[in-house]
C-alpha cells in the first residue's frame, strides 16, 4: 500500500505513513548452521540472481547494480568478520571484489553451470582477501587456519583457479542443502559435516547423536568419505589442488 501523500500550495508533499509496520524480518546471524532452513522464497531469489547475472554478463549495468544491491550487504558482513570489524578494509575488499566480478563477467569467465553467482562472488572475494593477507605477510597464518589446498586455490596465479574454487564450493553447497542429495548424504551426515567443520568434537557429536564416541567417529568418517568420493568423482582431487599452489605444496 503506497503511503498517502498530501499536496500543499507550497509544492511540498507530506508523506503520511500507512497503518502499522511489522518488525524487521532478518535471520539471526548466530543461528547454528544446522538450524537454518532455506528461505521459502530462495528458489525464486536464485532465479532472479541468475537472470540478473545473465544480463550483467552482457554489459547491463543496471542488472549488475541490482546484483550488487542484493548481495553487497552479505559480502560486506563477511569481510567485516574476516577483518575483525575493520570497516574501511572491508569496504576496500568489497570494492575490489565487485570490480573483479564485473570484469570476470564481461570477459566471459563466469559459467553459471558451474557455480551460483553468489558462490563465484564469494570465491573472488576470498581471493581478494588472501591477496591482502599475503601482501601483509600473514598468508601463512591463514594457511594454517584454513587449509593449504584451499588457500592455494585462492592465491594461484591461474585465473581458472578462481573458477575452480567456486565450482568446488558449489559442489559442497549442493551436497549440504536439504533436498539435494548428489553425494548420497542423509540428514544426519550433513549435520555431522557442518558440526564437525565448525569445531564440534567427537565427544560432543556422540552426546548429540546419543551414541558412543567410537560410533560417532565412525559415522563422521563415513560422512567425510562420502563427500570426498563425490568430489573426486567430479574430478576434484587433492593433487589438482596441490598443482595450483604457488610453487607446489
Amino acid at each position: 500500500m503506497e503511503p498517502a501523500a498530501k499536496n500543499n500550495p507550497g509544492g511540498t508533499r507530506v508523506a503520511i505513513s500507512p497503518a502499522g509496520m511489522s518488525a524487521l524480518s532478518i535471520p539471526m546471524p548466530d543461528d547454528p548452521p544446522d538450524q537454518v532452513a532455506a528461505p521459502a522464497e530462495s528458489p525464486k531469489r536464485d532465479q532472479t540472481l541468475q537472470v540478473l547475472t545473465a544480463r550483467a554478463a552482457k554489459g547491463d549495468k543496471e542488472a549488475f547494480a541490482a546484483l550488487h544491491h542484493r548481495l553487497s550487504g552479505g559480502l560486506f558482513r563477511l569481510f567485516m568478520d574476516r577483518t575483525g570489524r575493520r570497516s574501511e578494509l572491508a569496504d576496500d575488499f568489497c570494492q575490489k571484489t565487485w570490480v573483479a566480478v564485473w570484469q570476470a563477467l564481461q570477459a566471459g569467465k563466469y559459467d553459471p553451470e558451474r557455480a551460483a553467482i553468489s558462490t563465484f562472488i564469494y570465491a573472488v572475494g576470498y581471493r581478494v582477501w588472501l591477496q591482502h593477507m599475503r601482501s601483509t605477510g600473514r598468508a601463512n597464518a591463514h594457511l594454517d587456519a584454513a587449509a593449504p589446498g584451499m588457500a592455494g586455490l585462492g592465491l594461484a596465479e591461474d585465473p581458472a583457479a578462481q573458477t575452480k574454487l567456486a565450482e568446488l564450493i558449489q559442489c559442497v553447497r549442493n551436497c549440504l542443502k536439504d533436498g539435494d542429495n548428489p553425494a548420497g548424504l542423509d540428514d544426519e551426515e550433513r549435520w555431522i559435516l557442518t558440526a564437525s567443520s565448525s569445531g564440534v568434537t567427537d565427544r560432543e557429536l556422540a552426546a548429540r547423536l546419543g551414541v558412543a564416541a567410537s560410533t560417532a567417529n565412525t559415522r563422521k568418517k563415513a560422512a567425510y568419505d562420502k563427500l570426498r568420493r563425490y568430489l573426486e568423482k567430479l574430478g576434484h582431487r587433492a593433487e589438482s589442488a596441490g598443482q595450483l599452489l604457488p610453487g607446489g605444496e
Partner: protein
Amino acid sequence: MNDRDLNALIRMAQEVEQLEEPAPLRFEWAQADAGARKLHVRKALGGVAALAAAACLGIAAITWMKPAPSGVPGPVATNSGPAAVPIDVKVEPRSEGRDVAVRLASAKGSSPLGAVLLAVFKDSEDRCSCIQINGADFKGDLASIGSSELVRAALESSCHENPQEVLVIAMEGPRDRLPSSTAEAEFLAAAVQSGSSHCSDDGCLTETTGAFLPEGVRAVAGTVALR
C-alpha cells in the same frame, strides 16, 4: 582431499549461504563528537560499484517488512495539541538495524509530539561524507515547509565543510517513534537512500521516506545539489 580441506570447503559453503541472506545494517563510526552530534559514515563504493544504485552508505538489503494493508490508513498524529518540541538526540554506539526497526515499530506512539531533522551530506564523488540528526522546531505545519528551507536549516549546523549535495528528511510525530539517536539516523538514512534510487523528484523521495516510518509519523524529504 583430506578432512582439513573438506572442512574448509564446508565452512566456505556455509559462508556463501550467509552471503545470500539479507544482512543487518552495520555502521562504523569514524568520528563521533557528542557535542556537535557529528558522524562520519562509510563511504559508498567507488569505481564500477558506483554504477550500482545502492544506498549511499554502501549497505543494501534493507527489508523493512510491512503488514498487509488494512484498507483504511491508521490515524495520523496531527498538531492539534501542543506544538511538537525538539527531541534530544543521543549519540551512541552503532546499533543493530533490526533493533532499530523493532523499537520504532513497537513504540506505543503515545508520547508527546517531537520533531527531528535528518541530513545526509554527500561529497563531490557522490559519497556520503557525514550524517547529522538534530532535534528540530518546525514553525507551523510540516507540509508548509519547503525543501529549501529544510536544507537551509540543515546547513546551519552542517557536519561537512563543502558538501556537493544534501538529503534532508524532516520528521514529526510521537517522540518514541522518531529516530532519537545517531545510530537510528544512520539506519533510516540508509533505508531511504536504498529505497529511493528510482526517485527523480522530492515528491517521490518523500513518499519513499514515509514507507519506512512508523504509523503516525509525518515526513518531508528533499535533496538539493549545492554545487
